[in-house]
């Protein structure tokens, strides 16, 4: 049976999500191919969802443990989706206030978190041509970059809120969030921890 690109996405409890990804040494055609398959997986996944949109994605999420992420150029417009790739991204500095907002992850099914993060961040990375880029991000983009760089180090958004019973939600089929029962659905959920 033909496989959809979105079927390459791995989800918890796959242990690879908890591993560190390797640095890219040279930007070879294979790296470009990896980026193309990441984009294909994300676009295909978005098509299957009515109430959610992918804003960024890490290579580990299609089980390729390399330090590569793609970030959607435009978070709010539904179409057309374009992405920028960042290779070997690192956080240079976090600053600003801690803010909470909702975020989800394609590799953690059915759960949204109300996650505290710094609202400003500076990162450096290579672009697809191997040129160093530095990004000063604020607000939601700062959140997105922190989320993705966490993936490089085997860290997931639920790790930031694991002791907060108020921070876990699920997305209902009508697009609304509903708080999860922490005791029952989260704390001892073997899929998550």
């Amino acid at each position, binding site marked *: 049976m033909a496989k959809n690109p979105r079927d390459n996405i791995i989800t918890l409890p796959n242990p690879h999500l908890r591993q560190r990804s390797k640095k890219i040494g040279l930007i070879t055609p294979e790296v470009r191919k990896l980026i193309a398959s990441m984009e294909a997986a994300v676009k295909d996944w978005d098509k299957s969802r*009515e*109430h*959610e*949109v*992918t*804003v*960024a*994605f890490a290579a580990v999420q299609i089980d390729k443990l390399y330090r590569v992420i793609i970030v959607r150029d*435009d*978070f*709010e*417009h*539904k*179409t057309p989706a374009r992405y920028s790739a960042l290779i070997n991204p690192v956080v240079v500095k976090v600053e600003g206030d801690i803010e909470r907002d*909702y*975020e*989800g*992850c*394609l590799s953690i099914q059915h759960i*949204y978190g109300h996650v505290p993060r710094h609202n400003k961040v500076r990162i450096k990375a290579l672009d697809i041509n191997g040129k160093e880029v530095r990004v000063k991000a604020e*607000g*939601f983009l700062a*959140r*997105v970059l922190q*989320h*993705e760089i966490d993936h490089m180090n085997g860290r997931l*958004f639920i790790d930031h809120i694991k002791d907060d019973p108020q921070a876990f939600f699920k*997305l209902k089929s*009508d*697009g*609304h*969030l509903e708080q999860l029962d922490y005791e029952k659905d989260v704390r001892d959920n073997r899929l998550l921890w």
Partner: protein
Amino acid sequence: MKKMSETIVFFGSGPVAAEALQCLNEDFVIEAVVTKPVPPHHRGDFPVLSLAKKLGLQVYTPSNKQELSELFLTKPVQSKLGIVIDYGIIISRDVIDYFPLGIVNSHFSLLPRWRGADPITAAILHGDSETGISLMLIDEKLDEGELLAQAPYEISSPLTTPQLTKDLIELSHQTLVAVVPDYVAGHITPAPQEQVSIALLDSPTYSRKLTKEDGVIDWQKPAQQIEREIRAYIDWPKSRTQLGGIDVIITAAKVIELTGEPGKPVIQGKKLILPCGKQALQIIKLKPAGKQEMTAEAFLAGYNL
């Protein structure tokens, strides 16, 4: 990382609203539709309601301002933004404030020109060479809210109200799709109309709701004015007069140089001409009571004036 799509709540009732809803549904996730209820004994189509049901959207039908406010006390939606087009019920302050980003209205003129109920007809009646659409955050006053964006439209040829309406719906949709996501993302700061309007004529003017009497042609008016009325009123109330004792609706005419007794038909060969207060109108097409629309020539052949 993924996030929840931004959703909107749509307020609209009339046929223009139905077309807008159809367009918006392609680019936005619509959480709910608020529309007028079907009046008792109403026959025929109720466009927004039937479209919303066809699209499988959540529908609410409060019948007046009070019921609308009561509906929102029950916290029925989570969207941060509402969009209102051709709704027909006044939205009170508490409902506007329910939405953290407010309620956007697409108004079919370059505000502050042609505030009020009928901006499209007003632009045609006044022979404006430009009009457009304005995206505005509604407040409690009539069309005085802060602007998010405006898009101009050049009126280069004589248009009728339905032609201009169709083009402005399309322009409105393009602008909403381009602007609303940027506004939701915080990239657009609303600003007062008097500061940012792109209208050439930017002092406030007001359109009024038409009445049936507006359709009765007053031949004492200048021909140019009556010709505009014919285009502006073509759907309703229609430009009506009597020719040779027969009730007719004039549907197309052009201004020509001729003087004569206003309203008294002049026949030149196969041309039917009506002198006005200034200049005259050559009738191109008309519709006698109970008959199909016909050319002036066909009318002259069939009726004795």
